[in-house]
């Protein structure tokens, strides 16, 4: 805490080497983490659900192709792919969100595919088809609402891991431009300040990341028990 001469607290969490208020930077940093976390999960989720459901519904070659792509991506440590893309294409929120989003689709595709395959033969799907609904309408209006629960659970855990990945990439200097405060970026800057004794610069951004990620993990656990008791303890 830094107080002025009259003893009124000016900076609750202190200031950094350039005199900027850590507390306000933390609050602004939440923007990037949450924005990137939610958007990337949304992009990855949408992509994965569409591909997974299409594969699961159509089967055959389309399905095999999509699953082969998923296998290839899983066989590749994702963060390395992200690093390479960002080094060549340059960093920035858009690229960050895109690459993190693309990194997530496999998880959703696999679950959406398995669920669609089990729902495809159900009578309500047959009924919708008998009423003359098109394939796309059956997929996204009839089947999707019925397989949403496990996907929402995964999405919650996924927001947590995307926020961790974003922080790691920002820490490596591959996130948003250095003028925009991010938690990972603040931690990267704090490294040079450790020996100067400015410990608070390293402690608070980390606590912010940890609490946010922890919240989404707990939310995920709770959602899983609440929405889909069958998945309990299945991690």
């Amino acid at each position, binding site marked *: 805490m830094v107080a002025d001469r009259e003893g009124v607290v000016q900076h609750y969490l202190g200031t950094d080497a350039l005199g900027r208020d850590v507390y306000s930077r933390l609050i602004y940093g939440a923007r990037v983490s949450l924005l990137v976390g939610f958007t990337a999960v949304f992009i990855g989720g949408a992509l994965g659900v569409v591909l997974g459901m299409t594969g699961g519904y159509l089967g055959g070659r389309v399905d095999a192709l999509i699953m*082969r792509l*998923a*296998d*290839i991506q*899983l*066989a*590749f*440590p*994702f*963060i*390395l*792919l992200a*690093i*390479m*893309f960002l*080094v*060549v*294409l*340059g960093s920035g929120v858009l690229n960050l969100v895109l690459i993190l989003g693309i990194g997530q689709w496999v998880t959703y595709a696999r679950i959406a595919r398995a669920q669609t395959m089990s729902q495809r033969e159900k009578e309500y799907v047959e009924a919708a088809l008998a009423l003359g609904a098109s394939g796309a309408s059956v997929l996204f209006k009839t089947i999707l609402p019925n397989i949403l629960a496990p996907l929402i659970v995964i999405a919650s855990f996924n927001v*947590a891991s995307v926020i*961790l990945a974003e*922080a*790691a990439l920002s*820490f*490596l*200097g*591959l996130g948003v431009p250095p003028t925009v405060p991010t938690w*990972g970026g603040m*931690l990267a800057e*704090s*490294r040079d300040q*450790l*020996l100067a004794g400015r*410990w608070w610069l*390293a*402690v608070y*951004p*980390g606590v912010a*990341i*940890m609490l946010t*990620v*922890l919240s989404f*993990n*707990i939310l995920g*656990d709770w959602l899983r028990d609440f929405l889909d008791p069958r998945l309990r*303890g*299945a*991690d």
Partner: protein
Amino acid sequence: MPPPPAAAPGIGAASAGRRADTSYLAEHLMWQYVISRVVQAGIVIVAVTLITFLTLHMGGDPTYLYVSDRASDEEIQLVRERLGFDRPLHVQYLSFLGGLVQGDTGRSLTYRTPAMNVVIERLPATIELTVMAMLIAVVFAIPLGVIAALNRGTAVDGGIMAMAMFGQSIPSFWLGIMLILFVGLGLSWLPISGHVPVLEPLLKGDFERAWTNLPNALRYLIMPAFTISLFSMSRNARLVRSSMLEVLSQDYVRTARSKGLREWNVVMRHALRNAWMPVVTMLGLEFGFLLSGVVVVETVFSWPGVGRLVFNAINQRDVPLVQSAVVMFAGVFVLLNLIVDLLYARLDPRVRLS
């Protein structure tokens, strides 16, 4: 784990009629599985090289990475021709692939030497770190998971699971910084950065130096290895717990108990053996997680491995060096997954039959 592809070339199909005994059938299935897995790994490697190659070109003409901002058009054109960036894309890819087979991925922009050599030089330090981290992640996770499962619903279980939840939520690089701050600088228990080589003298055949270096090397290893492994350790503990709970409710465990075996024997010899199979399955993928952690954690602890090399290469936009490291990591990752899958199929016949 990706399911093995259904179709694979039949091996020794001609002799199948003559020797139709079951051991032959089992061997036949094993080979079918091995070949399909090797082919799959090969496809992945080719895909990795293709992606690596294409990313270099996605940012526009890569020539500009190699020339200074003030270079004239003639100079740029000269460099473009010298590096072959004026050729059609597929020709460039084939020559990239051809170079890769010979371990040549171009020259590092900062080191001015072949990029792959720079990466290989740093590899031993990274392997030391990853192996140690893997060891910590498994050795601590199994007892923690077992203890939590045996005390299901008690405060012990709750405590271990809460710790695991925290462990999965802490960014590794921050944990590293905190350890440096409190254990390294505050308590002065362990060195905050640096590295004493063990694997490198070992590979050069200098056993004596490796042996004398070992105690000191471990002191330098503990903090970074723990930092990388905490996430995996937490996840493994949860995994062991849930699979242990499942196994403990099985009939054969009840039978073992009803035979009057001591609880220790039931848990250790009957339950645990089956409960840690999911962890074995995860080990290959685990390595990928740990490798991802290596880049940030090596940077935090100034560990002279491939991870920090990548970090520096990123900052200097040394694309060939980043590419070499990525291809190297991906190659090691695919190879290890292949080995784990094959070992697993050897241990558990159900895998290759499915």
